[in-house]
């Protein structure tokens, strides 16, 4: 079965420190991976998708098929990055269903 694991419920860092939010997945096919973010009092929204290989708000994520990981990284955290982050997986094929991880709350301290 497909599964997305985010081992950290809470990650607390100081402003300016590097950030790495961990995401591991289990799926034998070719998945699509995503990061969604929910800022306080805002809707859940897409942050990154691995296919685009883009950097959004300074965040990047590389799909590592050997380690089945899709960790989210940012070299210098900002207070406005504080939010709940969810990693999500879509199986290859026709399905449009996403499987989400349990989420990591990032708290950036001043």
């Amino acid at each position, binding site marked *: 079965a497909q599964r997305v694991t*985010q081992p950290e*419920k809470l990650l607390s860092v100081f402003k300016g420190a590097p950030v790495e939010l961990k995401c591991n997945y289990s799926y034998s096919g070719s998945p*699509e991976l995503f990061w*969604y973010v929910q800022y306080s009092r805002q*809707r*859940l*929204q*897409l942050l990154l*998708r691995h*296919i*685009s290989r883009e950097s959004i708000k300074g965040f990047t994520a590389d799909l590592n098929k050997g380690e089945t990981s899709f960790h989210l990284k940012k070299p210098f955290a900002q207070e406005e990055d504080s939010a709940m982050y*969810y990693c*999500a997986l*879509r199986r290859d094929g026709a399905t*449009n*269903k*996403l*499987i*989400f*991880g*349990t*989420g990591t709350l990032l708290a950036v301290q001043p």
Partner: protein
Amino acid sequence: DAGITQSPRHKVTETGTPVTLRCHQTENHRYMYWYRQDPGHGLRLIHYSYGVKDTDKGEVSDGYSVSRSKTEDFLLTLESATSSQTSVYFCAISSPGQGEVTLHFGNGTRLTVT
């Protein structure tokens, strides 16, 4: 923001009563989803729809039913609410794309079952 409206935004109900949550979209997107968000569980898919009158179960569908009689509306019904169904419910929409899927979420409905 994508045109997605969930109603009600908050609801308190008693165990054993039926509850219906509504999701309305103005984007004419084909796919609609209901997720629940719980601490320690993240977001879990309840049901989804891939067209009018076309629905399928997600990973936590027991105790829930859905209906989609027109493109813009997707209803989630708790036939007989239980305390374990206290949660925040999110509706999402998406269009099938070329190799990519982006979900657009509503603001959520906070349901408390007493």
